């Protein structure tokens, strides 16, 4: 903490994989909870087309979500819920909500939130097929690439990295998730590290606890804090090495990013 400023730093991290089923949302919430030990953390479900963070965070029944904010029907403050030691901004799942939401407003949401938090985590879409899906990667300072030790996942992770680099976002590291005992993870992680920028943050084992946590509507670190997977996520969070920055200029940067309205 620097001087009298209550929020001397903010870093925006997108959690992305380019592919479904890698456990991105579980990872986002786990990293958020682990980082919240040290930082003021806000987690946003930026996967506006296939939102699921609300189910992981026990927010399935809330009134106001990111959809309402993106439709200009509510201020962002109304969609922030204090849960598990973090600010959580869930997104709705209705088709109507998605239709009315203007994804380009995400830039303003990120700018607003950035002014009042240390770490902003954006749970990103499991695809790179639309502007809305790519936007979190564009807006992030750095991207955490969630991988499984499979060819499709690695291939899509490489794509995410190239998108991030093209849009001047750095790679905070790669995270192998849902790793099974029978996979030669050490060899795979070694070989993968040659192609990815940023460190291998951790190798998280496939975990029944993660599935149980999802069913219970709780983040893994709240539901099973002692599970090996939870330990691995804490290790990953510690390896992220959150960068300091001035919150004012950073917020301005998001606002000035030129993203015209949808045609």
């Amino acid at each position, binding site marked *: 903490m620097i001087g009298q400023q209550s929020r001397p730093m903010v870093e925006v991290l997108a959690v992305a994989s380019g592919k479904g089923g890698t456990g991105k949302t579980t990872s986002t919430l786990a990293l958020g909870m682990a980082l919240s030990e040290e930082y003021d953390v806000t987690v946003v479900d930026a996967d506006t087309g296939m939102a699921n963070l609300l189910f992981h965070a026990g927010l399935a029944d809330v009134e106001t979500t990111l959809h309402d904010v993106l439709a200009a029907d509510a201020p962002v403050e109304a969609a922030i819920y204090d849960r598990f030691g973090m600010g959580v901004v869930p997104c709705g799942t209705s088709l109507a909500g998605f239709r009315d939401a203007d994804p380009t407003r995400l830039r303003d949401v990120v700018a607003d939130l950035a002014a009042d938090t240390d770490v902003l985590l954006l749970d990103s879409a499991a695809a790179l097929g639309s502007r809305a899906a790519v936007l979190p990667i564009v807006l992030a300072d750095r991207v955490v690439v969630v991988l499984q030790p499979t060819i499709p996942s690695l291939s899509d992770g490489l794509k995410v990295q190239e998108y991030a680099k093209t849009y001047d976002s750095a790679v905070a590291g790669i995270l192998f998730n849902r790793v099974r005992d029978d996979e030669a993870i050490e060899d795979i992680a070694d070989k993968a590290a040659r192609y990815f920028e940023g460190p291998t943050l951790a190798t998280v084992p496939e975990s029944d606890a993660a599935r149980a946590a999802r069913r219970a509507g709780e983040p893994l670190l709240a539901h099973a804090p002692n599970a090996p997977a939870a330990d691995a996520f804490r290790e990953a969070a510690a390896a992220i090495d959150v960068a300091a920055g001035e919150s004012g200029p950073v917020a301005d940067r998001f606002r000035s990013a*030129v993203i015209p309205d949808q045609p």
Partner: protein
Amino acid sequence: MKLPRGRLQRRRVVSDVATPLANALDAALTGYARLESQDALLLSAEGVGVLTFEEGIPVVAYHTGTDAGGPAALADIAVSGPYRIELFELDAETLADVHAAEELTVPPGMPARRLAGDPALADRTRERAPAAASAREADAATTDAPGAVEAFLADEAKIEAIQQRAREEAERRAVEWDLD
């Protein structure tokens, strides 16, 4: 490996192979899938992937370009999507000869895991597999070395092609979508 043409059930372009694999499983398809990558840059060779099914459970994998069979064929098929996928129905007697070629068989859950990266679908497939097919799963744990994933990561030209294509796509879209 030669197969007579079956009766076409479905034809579509998908970015995720999980969908047709799940379709085949749920429909208990006996027949085969023809998988053709739409990404000419990434084709390690001309050719298409063929995956046969018995009552929805994958049995044999083959790549017509590299002539690889079994788990090695899955590595050749597993490039980046989108794929054009065709599912054909073919009777079990016709498939019997091909299915007898043990060197071409794959464990039931392996295509879902290797081609789609979908462990849940792999589990679901394994659960439905008959005992004989499950035995292939047990064998594979010891005989599947060096792994397809390691082989993929050792193929620098393939990785470079993926990166190159993604860069071009990202740049093109930055213009298209006015991303800053």
